[in-house]
């Protein structure tokens, strides 16, 4: 029996969960900690207490933090999914969490492509989407890329379609990018198809997906400029229906052949903030700096959804982005501590939104 749950109830619970997100001052405390053990102790006094305690039985050091954060992340999303099940808003959550399915499948394919041990691939997965941990374990057990795709097809998982269609080309060129772009395109196309109605919630989710498409495309453009990809070939790596940038604009960015030239074309768009990136970074073609700025923009957009209608899907969207941001920041701090990165540099690496 499907029980209808009101969005008032769901959003009140999510707001309660939001109140347990870490305060920026906690990040500052974590940065000041001398080593990874003291970070674990500090995290044990926050909302991560339960998962930290569980993880510390089996693991220690950075691995303990990684496992605890991953479990907490998955639990949070599974919890939202549980009380949204049966509600009309379930379709939005499926779209939003579908990103993790795509990311997980990509990780498995990448791992299988370069023959990484199954246990290592499994450590990198975040089963927060529809595909649960058991499914992931079975996928990881497969010997190669083809077997993974075949298993997805056998289970009738929709992501098998774009992979099967592009597998022949992949096996000829041995370029995994083909499968990855096919997956991205399939996800975004289906997501936009599911939110084409004119309701407020549809509009919100559509706007977020289209912004994500823009960000993905801009990142791809920079990579293509760096790798000197031909404009004709570039078309195959771009996704349609971005919110501010169409394919022609993106291709003209590729045509400029330089980072500075491409950024100049973004002046009249919401991505004009990229022009603040110092010239020496552009000349050195440090994509990571640009990607971080774009990521920050996307997280800000996502988190700002909290200011939207409290009885809409805006609240879950805001929470998902805020939680992702928090976990990313804690991971940055923990990893930096193990590598003895100076505090000033850690602060620069964090995405404070």
């Amino acid at each position, binding site marked *: 029996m499907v029980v209808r749950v009101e969005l008032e109830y769901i959003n*009140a*619970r999510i*707001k309660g969960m939001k109140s347990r997100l870490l305060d920026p001052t906690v990040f500052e405390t974590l940065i000041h900690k001398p080593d990874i053990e003291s970070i674990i102790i500090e995290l044990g006094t926050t909302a991560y207490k339960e998962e930290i305690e569980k993880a510390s039985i089996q693991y220690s050091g950075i691995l303990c933090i990684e496992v605890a954060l991953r479990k907490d992340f998955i639990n949070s999303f599974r919890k939202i999914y549980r009380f949204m099940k049966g509600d009309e808003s379930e379709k939005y959550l499926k779209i939003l969490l579908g990103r993790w399915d795509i990311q997980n499948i990509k990780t498995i394919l990448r791992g299988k492509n370069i023959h990484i041990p199954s246990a290592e691939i499994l450590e990198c997965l975040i089963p927060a989407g529809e595909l649960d941990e058991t499914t992931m374990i079975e996928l990881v057990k497969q010997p190669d890329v083809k077997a993974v795709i075949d298993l997805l097809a056998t289970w009738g998982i929709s992501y098998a379609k774009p992979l099967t269609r592009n597998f022949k080309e992949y096996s000829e060129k041995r370029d995994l990018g083909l499968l990855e772009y096919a997956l991205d395109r399939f996800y975004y196309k289906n997501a936009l198809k599911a939110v084409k109605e004119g309701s407020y919630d549809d509009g919100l989710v559509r706007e977020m997906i289209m912004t994500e498409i823009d960000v993905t495309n801009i990142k791809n453009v920079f990579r293509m400029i760096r790798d000197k990809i031909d404009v004709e070939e570039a078309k195959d790596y771009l996704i349609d229906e971005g919110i501010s940038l169409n394919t022609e604009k993106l291709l003209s960015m590729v045509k400029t052949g330089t980072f500075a030239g491409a950024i100049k074309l973004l002046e009249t768009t919401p991505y004009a903030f990229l022009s603040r990136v110092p010239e020496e970074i552009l000349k050195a073609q440090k994509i990571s700096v640009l990607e971080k700025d774009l990521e920050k923009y996307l997280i800000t957009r996502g988190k700002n959804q909290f200011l939207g209608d409290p009885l809409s899907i805006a609240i879950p969207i805001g929470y998902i982005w805020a939680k992702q941001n928090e976990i990313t920041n804690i991971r940055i701090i923990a990893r930096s501590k193990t590598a003895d990165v100076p505090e000033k540099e850690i602060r620069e690496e964090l995405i404070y939104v």
Partner: protein
Amino acid sequence: MVDFGIPIGAAIAFGLGALGTGIAQSKIGAAGAGAVAEKPESFGLMLILVAIPETLVILGFVVAAMIMLMLE
């Protein structure tokens, strides 16, 4: 002939107030249940918030009573 105007007026005043209270309490109640599930310490506050729309039906009752008593 019996004049139904006064009791019907009183019924509308009370009925619409009750309907408004019902709608408001259903929304606040659902949100309150969600908030208490996450933060049990907010139970007292939620109880007060759920009770606030009762004022609507009380006002409706007062208006209905005034119609019945004063216009008779």
